[in-house]
């Protein structure tokens, strides 16, 4: 965190100054470790064993927060008899289809009830759910009984039923012992126990522990399950919904939270409404029936969706035309950035817009990215400088190797200079869901323009070209509410007008103040239901900057946090079942019986007048169907899910699988890798996978490599490698190796090393340092190689791109690549140039016996 988020790290330092213990778990000793109380190095790719070990410790030592667990999690819920765990199936869950490489999740369900996930994959049971929904929609009913049908699950509050979540959890994690942690992660048992004790001692009624993770957790073929592991642990310890608790996701750059809320993701609409899949005859009602819930706040999904459609298509969206629901695109599968590359290679994707991203350097398997770009008809790159993605056709590594020839590349590249955040108005949403407005300090120089300017004016020009078209296909573009006021000499669209549209309006055009006002009858508009209120009273609430010292410690008047300016979500969990704070020290909100409402320091994340003893009537739906003791109001059962009966594609509980390319066998199960990871769509001669564990040829790639960022540079370098002041601080690519590995491979400090995988070979200067210690794993000495990934061949500071080493193999839930753990070889000296570079890679492939099928097995 100190390395990549130094400004945010000030709060960790402040907490430390106030007595907090800081533990850093990372393969490397970094700038974070330097100021942490304890640094625990572990093998990259083994975190689920570490987290599973913690969960096992918490369960077996009895140190879980029993009152919280029984009342606020699904620990007591009984799972269907059909469920079989990895314990029973040696690393697989029930429902696995080896042909289709998917799980049928119906065996993971609650006994006596069917639930829908509040996030993640919600289309899993579309056919079952929508069938009746479609019929009922035809009868004009708003809500079908298909997908939304949820009974009351059976529970055992004693937590002793053998099929209750608590017992399943205990059995599942029983093998995640301190010995297993030592063997799989390379963390000595003593060090692991110390972490266990520190974390549990600092959790409970009086104390809370927070976890912070970054892409070191997410960029794996089991990335979502890493985070799930932390969620289970935090729920068991009662660390969610309470001050000082939670799980903080730190992202690659500013406002990634914002770009998920109002998404740049192919499978989401604003506010986490799922993008509809291409089902036949799916209308709005069937969509809501299948993907919404009957209980909790997702029961209002129709109001959120209709208001969104009204914000986008205005008067054109009417009840008669299903509010233009058919204008929305439909998913026909995964359309992530990596599938797009494969579509480019196949000639199915002709044009590509790149906004502030440098995939030729920053995405996994850079070579495949560049080969894809070379197949396009046109490419638009918007950035500050001529980044590698804009120049690959004349000076990329494949030009040098002869794999591409400039005269053969037909891609027409348009480079358009982009404005910096200091040159435009807009908001950043940080990891705490806090929106903070920034005002333009200066006009952008020259032809540089904001993304908002570019998108708005591009849309305006396209619409003017289509004007008068009678083609139905053009209606979604022509009917858009594309009417933002522009300002100044460069006709910059008003960012605040966009914010006002995101906030939403009532039938009179008055800004809404809360998402509870949203209607499903077309009388309200709202561009993102969770942001409703950010423009309350017609004022930009995100632009509030009252200093913290001039207000209450929650600082509600600094910026605006979604939803409803709540600073801690699910904060009903900060009070006990009867509505009293768990302790004075950790008081946040509480039930005021006299006034008959919830009150406290933060905005209650609960229906204000719902008493703790409220019990829903049997036919209740929506929020009314949750009891006064159900804090997790977005969940259809109101509980934190220790066990996820829906929403995940690769299992209801995190289980350890080795990374796609690993020098080690899976110590926990016979199943080596995540069986439903995405690899089959990426079989390509330049995306060869490696043998793992005990397979023949695995020893050709004996080391574990991990990639990361340095404080001095920013992601793929577009914002830093062109700047002299940053380039001089970290002038070129290096690799970090231990003195032991340096001796083993003949690497010398400041000399050159070549790192090789089945995809590519890159060269880097060598930094020999004890900060990347060798580990003892499964009885052998394991070396790790550290690789910062900022560099490319262009810019003021240059170097090879380490993402060229990495295969495309993805987490099935979110389609993220496994950049944080892979197997490699390292050798002294510079890499070959020209055609000799791919020849070296082919030689490694031959030595390891790699074929197109290697590593693709389930």
């Amino acid at each position, binding site marked *: 965190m100190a390395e990549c988020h130094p400004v945010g790290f000030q709060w960790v330092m402040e907490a430390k100054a106030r007595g907090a213990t800081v533990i850093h778990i990372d393969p490397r000793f970094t700038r974070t470790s330097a100021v942490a109380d304890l640094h625990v*190095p572990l093998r990259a790719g083994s975190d689920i064993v570490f987290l599973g070990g913690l969960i096992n410790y918490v369960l077996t030592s009895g140190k879980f927060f029993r009152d919280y667990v029984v009342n606020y999690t699904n620990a007591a819920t009984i799972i269907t008899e059909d469920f079989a765990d990895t314990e029973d199936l040696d690393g697989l869950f029930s429902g696995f289809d080896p042909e289709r490489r998917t799980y049928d999740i119906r065996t993971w369900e609650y006994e006596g009830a069917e639930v829908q996930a509040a996030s993640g994959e919600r289309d899993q049971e579309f056919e079952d759910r929508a069938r009746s929904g479609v019929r009922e929609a035809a009868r004009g009913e708003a809500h079908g009984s298909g997908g939304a049908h949820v009974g009351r699950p059976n529970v055992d509050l004693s937590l002793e039923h053998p099929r209750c979540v608590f017992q399943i959890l205990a059995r599942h994690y029983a093998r995640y012992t301190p010995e297993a942690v030592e063997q799989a992660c390379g963390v000595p048992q003593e*060090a692991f126990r110390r972490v266990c004790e520190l974390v549990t001692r600092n959790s409970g009624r009086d104390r809370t522990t927070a976890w912070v993770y970054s892409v070191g957790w997410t960029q794996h073929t089991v990335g979502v399950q890493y985070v799930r592991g932390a969620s289970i642990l935090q729920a068991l310890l009662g660390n969610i919904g309470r001050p000082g608790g939670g799980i903080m996701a730190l992202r690659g750059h500013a406002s990634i939270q914002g770009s998920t809320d109002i998404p740049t993701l192919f499978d989401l609409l604003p506010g986490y409404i799922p993008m509809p899949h291409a089902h036949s005859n799916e209308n709005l009602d069937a969509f809501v029936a299948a993907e919404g819930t009957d209980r909790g706040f997702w029961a209002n999904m129709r109001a959120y969706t209709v208001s969104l459609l009204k914000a986008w298509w205005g008067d054109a969206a009417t009840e008669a035309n299903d509010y233009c629901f058919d204008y929305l695109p439909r998913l026909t599968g995964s359309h992530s950035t990596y599938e797009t590359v494969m579509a480019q290679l196949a000639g199915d994707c002709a044009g590509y817009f790149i906004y502030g991203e440098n995939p030729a350097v920053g995405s996994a398997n850079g070579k495949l990215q560049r080969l894809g770009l070379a197949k396009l008809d046109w490419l638009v790159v918007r950035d500050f400088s001529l980044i590698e993605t804009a120049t690959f056709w004349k000076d990329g590594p494949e030009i040098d190797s002869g794999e591409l020839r400039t005269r053969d590349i037909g891609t027409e590249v348009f480079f358009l200079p982009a404005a910096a955040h200091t040159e435009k108005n807009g908001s950043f949403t940080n990891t705490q869901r806090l929106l903070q407005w920034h005002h333009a300090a200066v006009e952008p120089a020259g032809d540089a323009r904001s993304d908002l300017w570019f998108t708005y004016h591009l849309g305006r020009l396209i619409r003017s070209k289509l004007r008068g078209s009678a083609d139905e296909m053009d209606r979604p573009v022509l009917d858009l509410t594309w009417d933002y006021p522009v300002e100044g000499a460069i006709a910059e669209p008003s960012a605040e007008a966009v914010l006002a549209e995101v906030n939403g309006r009532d039938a009179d055009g008055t800004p809404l103040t809360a998402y509870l006002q949203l209607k499903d009858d077309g009388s309200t508009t709202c561009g993102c239901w969770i942001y409703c209120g950010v423009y309350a009273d017609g004022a930009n609430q995100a632009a509030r900057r009252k200093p913290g010292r001039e207000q209450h410690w929650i600082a509600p008047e600094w910026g605006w946090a979604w939803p409803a300016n709540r600073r801690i979500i699910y904060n009903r969990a900060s009070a006990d079942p009867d509505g009293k704070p768990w302790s004075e020290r950790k008081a946040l909100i509480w039930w005021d019986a006299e006034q008959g409402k919830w009150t406290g320091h933060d905005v209650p994340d609960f229906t204000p007048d719902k008493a703790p003893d409220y019990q829903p009537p049997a036919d209740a739906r929506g929020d009314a169907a949750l009891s006064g003791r159900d804090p997790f109001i977005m969940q259809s059962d109101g509980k934190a899910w220790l066990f996820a009966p829906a929403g995940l594609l690769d299992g209801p509980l995190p289980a350890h699988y080795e990374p796609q390319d690993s020098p080690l066998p899976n110590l926990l199960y016979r199943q080596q890798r995540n069986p439903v990871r995405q690899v089959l769509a990426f079989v390509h001669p330049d995306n060869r996978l490696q043998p793992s564990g005990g397979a023949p040829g695995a020893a050709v790639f004996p080391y574990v490599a991990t990639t990361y960022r340095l404080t001095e540079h920013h992601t793929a370098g577009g914002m830093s490698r062109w700047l002299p002041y940053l380039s*001089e*601080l970290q002038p070129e690519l290096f690799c970090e190796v231990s003195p032991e590995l340096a001796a083993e491979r003949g690497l010398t400090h400041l000399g050159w090393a070549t790192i090789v995988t089945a995809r590519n070979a890159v060269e880097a200067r060598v930094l020999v340092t004890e900060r990347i210690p060798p580990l003892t794993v499964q009885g052998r000495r394991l070396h790790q190689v550290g690789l910062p990934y900022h560099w490319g061949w262009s810019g003021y500071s240059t170097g090879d791109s380490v993402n060229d080493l990495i295969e495309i193999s993805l987490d099935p839930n979110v389609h993220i690549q496994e950049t944080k753990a892979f197997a490699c070889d390292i050798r002294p000296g510079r890499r070959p140039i020209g055609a000799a570079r791919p020849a070296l890679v082919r030689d490694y492939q031959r030595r390891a016996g790699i074929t197109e099928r290697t590593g693709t097995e389930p």
Partner: protein
Amino acid sequence: MTAIDVPLTTRPDGMDSYPGTQPRMGFFTDTSVCIGCKACEVACKEWNHVPEDGLVLTGMSYDNTAGLSADTWRHVAFIEQRTAAPDDGAPGGGLRWLMSSDVCKHCTHAACLDVCPTGALMRTEFGTVVVQSDICNGCGYCIPACPYGVIDQRKEDGRAWKCTLCYDRLGAGMEPACAKACPTESIQFGPLDELRERAQARVSELHAAGEDSARLYGNDPADGVGGDGAFFLLLDEPEVYGLPPDPVVTTRDLPSMWRHAGAAAVTLAAAAAASFAVEALAGRLGGGGRR
């Protein structure tokens, strides 16, 4: 005033030239909370238009700046150390990574200022020591005079450059750029008296927490430079950070040197005179002899 009468400042706060109410301002750099982000280096260069000075991978941990120079007025040192292994035998245990942002010390007794023949170096109303670039003639006397090796000549223009403690910002009531950019309050700016108190309290706090190696550097008005306007909290010996353990203002001995030189000159003159006298005497004696 001649060069011999170097006016050493005598007030412990180094503020003889400015007897007004403006307190002496300075830096307290608490290296125990430095995270090595180098924001201070970049902010300094941005604000003061200090040029980039070379892309060199030094191999000295994450320090590719190497040291203070004419083109580096803040410099973060990175020191990787192996310490006693902890009880739990963690594989990465026993490592320590010290980071420290170095800067001009703005000495109470500033030798650079003492030796400057043009008056380009001056003490400001904030008690800081600043080179006036429009007066500096590039003679370079100040460079060997600095006991810390801070001030340096820029090859491109021959003039001497170093930290100004953002004299221009101070005049506008702002804090220096490095302190403003520091995310962890490792670099603290303020009245020197306050900083010294704060630093003493911080050392006590660290000692109480078992960090026995914490010590202040440059805070003592009785030291060889009369105390620094920019002082530090270190976690190891100064030499570990590349700082001299016992700096002495290089002009300290100038008066006595000149006194000794003067005495020597007088002695020499006397001896010379005496030799003539002897010769004259001898001549007189010998003259008679030649006859």
